[in-house]
């Protein structure tokens, strides 16, 4: 359960950093990439917690075939984790394009789309967290 809470806090914090980055970029202020970097670091914390959690469960002998709970636990959380990894690539792309000045003059469509993807990944986790860890 503690791992689930840690994952949730890491993803919420990451989403918050992306929201702050978007405000910076939208206003043409410096610091957008710093917030995106912090978002990536938070995502790395999520991946670290998740991999530790998998290692711990595997060491205890729990795998996909143990029972229905572990089948859905591994299936749902791994599927979500792949989306997080894809989202991290999106964030790196946004950082690169922002560094090149692509989002100047209000051309924010690409940035907003990438940020929305990241928030959607967070949103999925907000539903998975109680289902997998609390109930």
């Amino acid at each position, binding site marked *: 359960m503690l791992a689930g809470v840690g994952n949730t*806090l890491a993803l*919420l*914090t990451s989403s918050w950093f992306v929201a702050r980055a978007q405000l910076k970029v939208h206003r043409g202020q410096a610091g957008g990439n710093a917030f995106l970097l912090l978002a990536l670091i938070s995502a790395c914390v999520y991946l670290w917690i998740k991999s530790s959690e998998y290692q711990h469960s595997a060491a205890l002998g729990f795998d996909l075939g143990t029972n229905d709970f572990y089948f859905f636990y591994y299936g749902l959380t791994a599927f979500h984790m792949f989306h997080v990894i894809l989202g991290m690539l999106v964030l790196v792309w946004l950082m690169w394009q922002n560094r090149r000045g692509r989002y100047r003059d209000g051309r924010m469509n690409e940035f907003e789309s990438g*940020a929305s993807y990241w928030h959607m990944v967070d949103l999925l986790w*907000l*539903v998975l967290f*109680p289902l997998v860890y*609390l*109930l």
Partner: protein
Amino acid sequence: MSEARLADSIWILLILVTVAMAYFGENGAITFATVVLILSASAVKAFCVVDYFMGLRKAPRVWRFMLLAYAPVIGVIVSVTYLF
């Protein structure tokens, strides 16, 4: 309140609700009321992410409501499943 301060406040609220949910999930018996309470808290968190992080407060209603409906719909399905 500035947009940045609003985002900061929402983040603090989300963290507090998460910790409270974990406390109830860990210390309370899992009854139907607990299930509804925890899923409602999840829905509130989802509303905050959609409106304040995604920034859909001023988006067209259809898009906003589709995303706002996501967590409550899942919550209702899970709650009904729990009953049966």
